[in-house]
């Protein structure tokens, strides 16, 4: 609380950034230890979590007061007018301090108390069990086994302890391969397709430079091919643009040389890096946040930002993966540079296309736990949870959610969850209210004792499950077993409900989803009533 100088300011105006009439709501602004709260004269409350604040800006003084513009990570933009400059200055300074924490222990999750006891908390954390998930996929089996090589995070700090590798890959091979891979991230299993016996594996780039080789790494790749009895060759998909991968060779990194590895088919899929993605989304938000935007400006802004092109590239890569597995029964190894951004996107989307389980509410949680959290997507750095290097911040996970949204648009009946579910997850990767997304890898999370000190998000989402259900979901439909999305350009649209989720004036005035969901519920209720009454009638 030492950062808060003023806790309450009255007669503050809240402007709507898209309303043409310049309407303003007058109300009172409160500053708490965790939130900024605005209560307008209708007693409507707007809560803004300090962790959600991406930037605070004080604009030049006007006749009506001092404007304060707050941009949030969940794409909310609020524009306050504070009557007195001194109050504005105090709030501005407090927010600057409160929105940037120096250490993990100061994050909201460590003080958030949802009134659960310790065993409830523990059960919450045990809700998603990855060992169970690998079992569901069908591993371990005669070709794949659990390796204890990374038991103490010795081989790779950013990987989880439990890793699945080909049964014929011995520990020395694994250790050798890990030394030849950036950050020690050697090839491991991400998804196993039981009926095709094909695997999606992930790793980081090889330290091949211009000519270096590593026999153990070559062996490990061969072991992955051999673990697939249906097909003797495997694909190696480098998700980077060719040029970037080539440039990495000069730094002693690079990509696999097809001549050195037997039976691999190597290919680039050209997804840009985190820095390109960060500025692309920034540009998109600048354009779409402009008042009085013309149609032409929006579309040329969409084009120049490149955002939809990037989304298309990510989804396109996932399609390559799914096709290799379904049409050729081939295994695929995916990497980028470090193997925690683009690789996470492509592996998880590929699995989502292949396996209907990941399109359920629970399955989607498992997918995020597996390919994002456990494999070390650096959530804290990418979301800027702590005051750190702004160059490490990038909307990689947001982009993944957008790809999933595009799939839900193309296949309205293939997903158990709806858009609200995606938005809610996005809300919480930045909120730091739950422990799941805090830290950058499993090792760090263990050191932070997150399971003892914080709560897991998933049980809370499951409790509200009804809100996140898609009423049109057809779980049994065979045509949705494997999704084959069409990635032609005109299938990609601006995701208004994400990037303008708080700009209600831009939204449809009525929601089909809610009405159908309600009808569905009522139908079920009435059918049950009928059954009840009928059985009563026969019993009489």
């Amino acid at each position, binding site marked *: 609380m030492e950062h808060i100088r003023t806790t309450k300011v009255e007669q503050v105006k809240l402007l709507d950034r898209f309303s043409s009439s310049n309407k303003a709501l007058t109300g009172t602004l409160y500053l708490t230890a965790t939130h900024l709260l605005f209560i307008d004269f209708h007693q409507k409350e707007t809560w803004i979590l300090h962790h959600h604040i991406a930037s605070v800006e004080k604009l030049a003084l006007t006749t009506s007061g001092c404007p304060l513009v707050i941009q949030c990570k969940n794409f909310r933009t609020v524009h306050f007018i504070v009557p007195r400059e001194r109050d504005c200055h105090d709030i501005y300074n407090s927010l600057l301090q409160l929105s940037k924490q120096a250490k993990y222990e100061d994050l909201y999750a460590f003080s958030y108390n949802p009134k659960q006891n310790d065993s409830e908390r523990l059960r919450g954390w045990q809700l998603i069990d990855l060992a169970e998930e690998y079992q569901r996929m069908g591993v371990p089996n005669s070709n794949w086994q659990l390796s204890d090589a990374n038991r103490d995070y010795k081989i790779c700090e950013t990987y989880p302890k439990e890793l699945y590798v080909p049964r014929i890959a011995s520990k020395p091979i694994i250790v050798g391969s890990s030394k030849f891979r950036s950050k020690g991230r050697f090839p491991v299993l991400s998804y196993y397709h039981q009926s095709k016996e094909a695997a999606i594996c992930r790793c980081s780039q090889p330290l091949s430079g211009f000519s270096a080789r590593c026999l153990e790494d070559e062996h490990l790749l061969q072991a992955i091919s051999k673990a697939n009895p249906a097909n003797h060759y495997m694909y190696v998909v480098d998700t980077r643009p060719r040029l970037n991968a080539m440039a990495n060779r000069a730094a002693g990194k690079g990509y696999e040389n097809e001549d050195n590895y037997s039976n691999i088919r190597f290919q680039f899929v050209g997804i840009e890096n985190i820095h390109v993605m960060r500025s692309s989304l920034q540009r998109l938000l600048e354009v779409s946040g402009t008042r009085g935007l013309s149609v032409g400006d929006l579309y040329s802004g969409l084009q120049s930002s490149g955002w939809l092109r990037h989304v298309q590239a990510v989804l396109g890569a996932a399609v390559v993966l799914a096709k290799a597995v379904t049409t050729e029964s081939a295994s695929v190894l995916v990497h980028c540079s470090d193997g925690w951004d683009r690789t996470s996107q492509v592996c998880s989307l590929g699995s989502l296309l292949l396996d209907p389980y990941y399109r359920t509410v629970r399955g989607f949680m498992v997918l995020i736990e597996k390919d994002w959290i456990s494999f070390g997507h650096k959530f804290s750095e990418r979301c800027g949870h702590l005051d750190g290097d702004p160059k490490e911040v990038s909307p990689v996970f947001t982009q993944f959610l957008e790809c999933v949204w595009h799939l839900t648009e193309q296949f309205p009946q293939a997903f158990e969850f709806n858009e609200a579910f995606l938005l809610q997850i996005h809300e919480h990767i930045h909120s730091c209210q739950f422990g799941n997304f805090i830290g950058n890898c499993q090792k760090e999370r263990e050191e932070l004792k997150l399971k003892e000190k914080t709560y897991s998000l998933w049980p809370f989402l499951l409790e509200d499950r009804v809100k996140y259900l898609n009423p049109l979901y057809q779980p049994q439909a065979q045509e949705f077993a494997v999704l084959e999305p069409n990635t032609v350009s005109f299938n990609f649209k601006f995701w208004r409900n994400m990037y303008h989720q708080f700009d209600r004036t831009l939204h*449809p*005035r009525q929601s089909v989803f809610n009405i159908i969901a309600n009808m569905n519920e009522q139908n079920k209720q009435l059918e049950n009533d009928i059954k009840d009454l009928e059985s009563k*009638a026969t019993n009489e």
Partner: protein
Amino acid sequence: MEFSELIRTGQAQAELLRGPEAPPLRGTLCVTGHHLLLSPGPQATPDLWLLLLRSVDSIEKRVAGDCGTITLRCKDLRVLQLDIEGVEATLNIARSIEALSSLESVITSFPFFYRPKGLRLGDAWHFHPPERYYKRVARETNAWRLSEANEDFSLCPSYPRAVIVPRAVNDDALALTARFRQGGRFPVLSYHHAPSRTVLLRSSQPLIGPQKRRCAEDEALLRAVLAGSRPGARGFIVDTRSAQTAKQARMTGGGTEAKAAYPGWKRLHRPLERGRPLQESFVHLVEACGDLEQSMDHWLSRLAGCRWLAHVKEALSTACLAAQGMEREGACILVHGAEGTDSTLVVTSLAQLILDPSSRTMAGFQELVEREWIQAGHPFQLRCAHSAFSHARPKHEAPTFLLFLDCVWQLGRQFPLSLEFGEGMLLALFDHAYASPFGTFLCNSEQERCLCEVRTRTHSLWSGLNQLKEQRKLRNPLYVPNPLALWPSVEPQSLRLWQGLFLRWTRPPEPSEAAWEKVWQIVTDQEKTEGSQPTVSASELQL
């Protein structure tokens, strides 16, 4: 004239390719007076594939070896390819299609021969006469009367026989006003908004000319409009041209109302695209939508460059402006551009959809289209002679009606529960406006339709659409009457490309169609379970 003279080859063996999603069809191809038929061989299903020749927009032929290929681009934006055995046959069939698809004569067109089962000639035509709308107005206000001054179409060839005008203005004055307005389109009532006691009028531009002519009767008419409305009402003239274009129109005899001559009326300029630029915008959009290989950058720049969505935004905002003027400011609104048969109608019909809940029902919307487009004299035959594929330089073609349908679709997206009709209805109207077995969209005006005896010799589209079997395609299962005005967001982020129309034939329709089926199923289940509830409670009472 005999069609047989134009048919050079009766039939040939051919294979029909209907795009990536539908399987190819093989069989005997046959050209008749109005149709292209493909009948599959005897072993296959007896299903006949049929295309109305009128719906062919452009035709392209190519020969190689001893076969040929004909590409037909249709007015509903479909692209079909026919692979035909025999060079001679290909060329002859192509020529026959070319000749038959561009016949100008109305009375030899297919609607005059179409006699579907289950429909009676003359049905449903009487559903929407101006008299019927007048009855509704007369219940709400006494300030207006139905005038039959145009009985013989002498005042205004593009108006219907009866129009609604201020009670205080007699037929002689109307005749003089008609001479002061282009094409005789004097201001008439388009819509009476009972809650605010204001009216929406439409007309064509006044013939001010370089000499700055005035017309006392015209001025008196607009004065009478304000006098018949609420006390102290003001008026807005929404001119759908820019101030500069309106001023320039004086050089060719037109112009816009001078402020001094019309006290109480204020002029607003809201330029809307029309004519050739609108047609070109349509052509460019359709071109872009046909390219499956293009990069994202290319697609987005074409989408921006064709400006179609910008036209949608402008049309919707202008309609909102007119509707707002009436509902919020209690003002009377007169809308016109130059001729008053295009962008004027877009604005007046959309403003009604925004304000008037009864125009959002199935019957009300049909009445709106009939009254504000067909009887109001939108020249459908000229505007819809060609769609987006024709190589000919457009003369009078313009997708004004499509622009209206697109705006309605945007409204339906933003208020998905408030329109009783669904996307299927809008698609049907688009298809039938360009080529139809029904007579509803034939000709350019009531006068022409009378001369051709369209009403007695062809079937009405409305009776076709109102058959029970068509309803599921056309209705919105989620409709709940909404008594409020529908104010759409016109921000570009809120507008979408109408994929259901522009990408109808290029994207696989299955997932969204299946989803729509599911919605229907949920709604019918709802009706069933609700319907069965009383019987259950009845049995409970017996216990």
